[in-house]
């Protein structure tokens, strides 16, 4: 019908689809899944970094880290709002998260045993996220695209902060340099896997690209990321843990080695370092906070009743009539 035609036109003209526009059920469903997974990733992603707030080694770093983790909560909230415009409740999404039925980015199932991990997460994980997300600022669905604009701005700030943490370590003592290198060794490959499996094994990508909610293939994004990392690693003075990395004049890109996709599927299947802890921490917080939320609801109800009653008593004639 008309709706479908308009939808196709919007896509063709690289315009935005808005909540009130007609859209195919599968488009809606895919977006809900993608946006809510992204929101969950922000929420769960607070934990690996939250782990160091109490131990940050300088007040400046403590402030930056607190602000960053808080930004992630904020991103989660925007994204939940964007998903809500597609007709799903936040409670429903959150419940999917804390009951383990929803996915979130597998990278957050790794742990942060050292302070340098605050650097690696910023530089590598946020770096990969940005490569993924910058194209999404042009996503066809309006509320999502706009949320991504705001998020990307903050993420690139976070990435720079991560880079600076590593830089400070690399300019520091032998122990600090070793801490940075060891951390980069752990995070490099998982960060590259954030773009998802190789294109050949990624069946959903075609449709998403047609819908303008995915702009580049997994492998394209991964290449872009590696091309960005290599010169930055040189500035830092860290070694990326892949001996196959070298400039390929012909391709105009850096070659890099194969990734261990068994590792990836292990973590995805729940057998990573911290899967068990992540969801249950958030669920525990939610359950321990149930009485607080109930109180807030009860209070709001009482206020609503009271103000209705006061409106009523302020206008007795109307009620009587």
């Amino acid at each position: 019908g008309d709706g479908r035609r308009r939808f196709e036109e919007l896509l063709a003209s690289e315009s935005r689809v808005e909540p009130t526009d007609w859209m195919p059920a599968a488009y809606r469903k895919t977006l809900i899944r993608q946006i809510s997974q992204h929101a969950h990733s922000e929420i769960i992603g607070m934990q690996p970094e939250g782990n160091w707030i109490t131990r940050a080694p300088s007040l400046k770093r403590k402030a930056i880290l607190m602000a960053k983790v808080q930004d992630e909560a904020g991103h989660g909230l925007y994204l939940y709002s964007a998903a809500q415009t597609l007709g799903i409740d936040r409670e429903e999404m959150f419940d999917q998260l804390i009951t383990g039925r929803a996915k979130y980015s597998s990278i957050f199932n790794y742990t942060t045993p050292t302070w340098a991990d605050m650097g690696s997460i910023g530089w590598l994980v946020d770096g990969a996220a940005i490569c993924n997300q910058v194209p999404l600022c042009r996503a066809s669905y309006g509320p999502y695209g706009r949320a991504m604009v705001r998020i990307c701005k903050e993420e690139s700030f976070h990435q720079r902060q991560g880079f600076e943490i590593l830089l400070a370590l690399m300019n520091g003592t032998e122990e600090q340099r070793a801490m940075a290198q060891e951390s980069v060794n752990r995070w490099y490959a998982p960060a590259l896997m954030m773009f998802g499996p190789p294109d050949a094994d990624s069946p959903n990508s075609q449709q998403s690209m047609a819908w303008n909610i995915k702009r580049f293939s997994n492998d394209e994004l991964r290449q872009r990321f590696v091309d960005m990392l290599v010169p930055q690693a040189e500035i830092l003075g860290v070694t990326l843990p892949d001996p196959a990395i070298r400039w390929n004049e012909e391709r105009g890109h850096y070659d890099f080695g194969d990734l261990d996709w068994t590792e990836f599927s292990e973590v995805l299947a729940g057998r990573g370092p911290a899967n068990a802890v992540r969801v249950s921490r958030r669920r525990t917080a939610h359950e321990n906070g149930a009485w607080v939320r109930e109180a807030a609801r009860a209070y709001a109800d009482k206020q609503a009743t009271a103000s209705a009653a006061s409106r009523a008593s302020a206008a007795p004639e109307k009620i009587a009539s």
Partner: protein
Amino acid sequence: SEPVALYALGLGDDALVLAHRLGEWITHAPELEEDVALGNIGLDLLGHARSLLTYAGSAWGTSEDDLAYFRGESEFRNRQLFEQPNGDFAHTIARQLFASVYFDGLYRALRRSTDPTLAAIAAKATKEVDYHLDHSVQWLLRLGLGTEESHRRMQRGLDAMWPFVGELFRAETGLPEGGVAHVPLDVTDGGTLGGVVVDLEPLRSAFDEIVPRLITDAGLTVPTVPFARGGGREGRHTEALGPMLAEMQVLARAHPGVTW
């Protein structure tokens, strides 16, 4: 001057210790909005702490990080309210309510300090504390008037934090016996701090007027538990501070003298 620095050190420790406690909530809050709100308040306080400690340290050529990470428990000068553990959300709200009323009065008055740095720090802080106070009051009402359970917990929270209210309005003091690391021992209260520091007596009166009203408006009872002895400004702390500092300082102390 050094007496001023000592004054700033105490205020800075108050803010730092409470900021750290609020940071402990992050990823554990009852809802995401509170992860954000408690984090925001913590960040504001951390900002105040950094300004105050930097200013204090400038008198002795020592940095905010030296002061934060390389003093021991008995060298911390925060009043004891701020170090109290988070407990449940109601405990945290009670602590924050008392803290915000105190900070609100303090920073408002401190804006008129004859010390321009302190006055400037206070001017910025005042606006932020305004929001903190509002946040606590809203939750005080919600929890006090919400459900039976929230009412009971909020009363427990108030009762638990009340003993540490008395100390908030006791006069500033000199250095603890034995001194403070990174702070030279020969600091004496020689100079008059007349126009520099805030007179606490009017703050106490304001507290005594505002807080009981807020508590009763929320359907709760003003606690009658006695005030604890206090002594935070002289480096005497409750048993909560030691383990908190162990965690806060562990990494910095493992690598003394480096840059992060």
